[in-house]
């Protein structure tokens, strides 16, 4: 059965902390792994990963895919209150598969 599992389910940190969010998957015909940031209703795209071991970076955010371990991590360094959101991991295989997300709360 195809599935995407994210951990932790929720996380509360202080500003300036570094966080690591995890996504593991079992997907038939893996094509890509996507990270989204969801505030309010609509997710915004962060990264798309297709190749194992190649880090993608955008400001304080970075992500890497490990196809051998069937997982990906999303790192956020020097967290800010504006990073508070749900972070969604999604896979494209035969269709789109989404995890339930990690809820991150950054407190001042």
């Amino acid at each position, binding site marked *: 059965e195809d599935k*995407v599992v994210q951990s932790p389910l929720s996380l509360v940190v202080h500003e300036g902390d570094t966080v690591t969010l995890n996504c593991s998957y079992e997907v038939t015909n893996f*094509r*890509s792994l*996507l990270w*989204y940031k*969801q505030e309010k*209703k*609509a*997710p*915004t*795209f962060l990264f*798309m990963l297709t190749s194992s071991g190649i880090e993608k970076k955008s400001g304080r955010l970075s992500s890497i895919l490990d196809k051998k371990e069937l997982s990906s991590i999303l790192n956020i360094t020097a967290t800010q209150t504006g990073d508070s959101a749900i972070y*969604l991991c*999604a896979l*494209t*295989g*035969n*269709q*789109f*598969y*989404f*995890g*339930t*997300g990690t809820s991150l709360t950054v407190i001042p």
Partner: protein
Amino acid sequence: GAGVSQSPSNKVTEKGKDVELRCDPISGHTALYWYRQSLGQGLEFLIYFQGNSAPDKSGLPSDRFSAERTGGSVSTLTIQRTQQEDSAVYLCASSLTGGVRSYNEQFFGPGTRLTVL
């Protein structure tokens, strides 16, 4: 330029009634996607369109759900005989080209919050 728009933003209906949700994608985007987010659940893929055709309808939860797209633009998601478990936020997204085989960045609309009483 204008982003993806959806209407209505909120819809409250009675169990058993039919509802229609509308999505206007970004002009020129050939791919259009429908998702559903229920309370406490992850984002659930429903269907995507490439032009006016829907290569993949396997995400539609039951035969009460249908969707169409006309003129390669506007799409409507119809839910017949609504049930309380249909209550969710229905999100639409569009991308320049797309589908599961060739991902392009998706731009999401604000969603329609459907409540079935």
